[in-house]
């Protein structure tokens, strides 16, 4: 098996792969080279760094959980519901994937801002508005992250052989049995992959968060924003925070490699 694999990689392909790896690896290695490892803990224990780290982890995890809770049912509807509706709906619900983040933030502001289409009534009724709150950070992460869940999980749902569902129906399973006991367990890896991608996107989000939520330490200033602020005042701090972001990303990708691989190979 491995002998065959070795032989199918030709020299030209290897050259391209080396260039590809260099493009992806060198900037990251360069950044790690600059990280002040000796004073790393000290850099990370400044008050603003700690606040940004905790806030980013909390909000991105909540965004990812919500993305799964809401995105998986949507994926099921797109895969098995009325296909004419699904065809119309699909480009819209996945569009945040390709929207520039600042546009995403602006869209959220237009809807939920204090002068927004929904936000205005909310503010007049309750005196509360979403921008400048931690909830706004979560919503921004959900908006840009959930499309990953929808995209990946719907693809998995579509691969499920219809015969199994037909057989289950014959044996007396109803629609909810099919979703909960067949579709969902069968697509477990896709859900994990979608959640991971949604989480990673939420963790790295900058433009949408800044436009919609603002930037206040401990409330809305996430790690990427703290890095941006530190760029102008404290470069070693920016490098140290970047190292943390890289470490978190690599750890998660490594832990989830089996799920990620199996989703791609089941295609």
């Amino acid at each position, binding site marked *: 098996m491995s002998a065959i694999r070795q032989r199918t990689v030709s020299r030209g392909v290897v050259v391209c792969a080396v260039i590809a790896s260099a493009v992806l690896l060198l900037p990251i290695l360069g950044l790690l080279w600059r990280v002040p490892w000796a004073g790393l803990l000290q850099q990370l224990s400044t008050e603003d760094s700690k606040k940004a780290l905790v806030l980013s982890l909390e909000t991105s995890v909540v965004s990812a959980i919500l993305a799964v809770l809401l995105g998986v049912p949507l994926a099921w509807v797109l895969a098995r519901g009325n296909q004419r509706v699904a065809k119309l709906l699909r480009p819209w619900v996945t569009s945040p994937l390709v929207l520039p983040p600042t546009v995403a933030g602006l869209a959220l*502001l237009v809807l939920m*801002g*204090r*002068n927004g289409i929904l936000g205005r009534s909310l503010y007049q009724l309750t005196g509360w*508005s979403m*921008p*400048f709150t931690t909830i706004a950070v979560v919503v921004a992460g959900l908006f840009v992250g959930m499309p990953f869940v929808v995209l990946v999980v719907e693809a998995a749902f579509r691969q499920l052989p219809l015969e199994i569902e037909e057989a289950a129906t014959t044996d007396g399973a109803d629609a909810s049995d099919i979703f909960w006991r067949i579709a969902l367990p069968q697509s477990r890896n896709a859900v994990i992959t979608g959640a991971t991608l949604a989480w990673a996107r939420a963790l790295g989000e900058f433009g949408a968060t*800044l*436009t919609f*939520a*603002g*930037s*206040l*330490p401990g409330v*809305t*200033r996430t790690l990427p*924003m703290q890095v*941006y*602020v530190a*760029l*102008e*005042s404290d470069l070693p701090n920016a490098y140290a925070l970047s190292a943390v972001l890289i470490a978190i990303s690599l750890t998660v990708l490594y832990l989830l490699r089996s799920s990620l691989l199996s989703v791609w190979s089941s295609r």
Partner: protein
Amino acid sequence: MKKPVALVLAIVLALGAIVFAQHNKSATPSVQVTLPASDHTVTVFAASSMTGSLTELAKSFEASHAGVHIELSFGSSSTFAQQINNGAPAQVFASASVKAMTDAGARMKNVQSFMSNQVVVAKPSTKYVEIKTAAQLLNDPRITWIQCAHEAPCGAAADKALKVAGVTSTPKSLEPDVKSVLAKLLAGEVDAAIVYHTDVVAHQELSEIAFADSASATTVYQIGEVDGADSIATEFIAYLLGPDGQAAFSAAGFNLVVPQ
């Protein structure tokens, strides 16, 4: 399999030949039309607070200097300082603070202070007309307000002014530059914001409450050449510091008297 490849190749070659021919045809006369001073670009990095006035000045400079193009880039002075330090290809840098100019480092030449600006409390002109002082407005519990991050010149000036004025409330957000502070104020997401006097001059729908202690609210603008700037860059700076430039900056609300 071979046939389509040959066909595609033939089409590509034919298209290439056409494009080449077109290019040559149009290139020949245009060379004769262009004035002797061949196309020349001066890249300018400037604080976003100068956007309106500098854009107009650049246009009139281009009008009187055929073949010269002034490429303007507006943003946070502290971001530009970092970029210049890292070799960004600018020839002129106009900074909204002395600190940002200093941070731009050894590549800066012939740096001089040329005007100043003040941070003020800006609010919609129709609202809170009864409130007279900055501290009164910002300390009011009904008011939400924002300012620039401490690292940006507008934030540094705001910090000083707020402290002297005795403001005890805290901002809802510390935005990366004055543009994004202004955007949220104009969108109505906040009741008030610390921006520059020049921003209020540029927006009729806003009115300002100046800080009583104006010295603490003042930031000094500096301009200089970046290493490698040529004579046209020098000429452009001289134009900005000359009567035309001074008139435009003054009309925009800048103070031409530089505090020592």
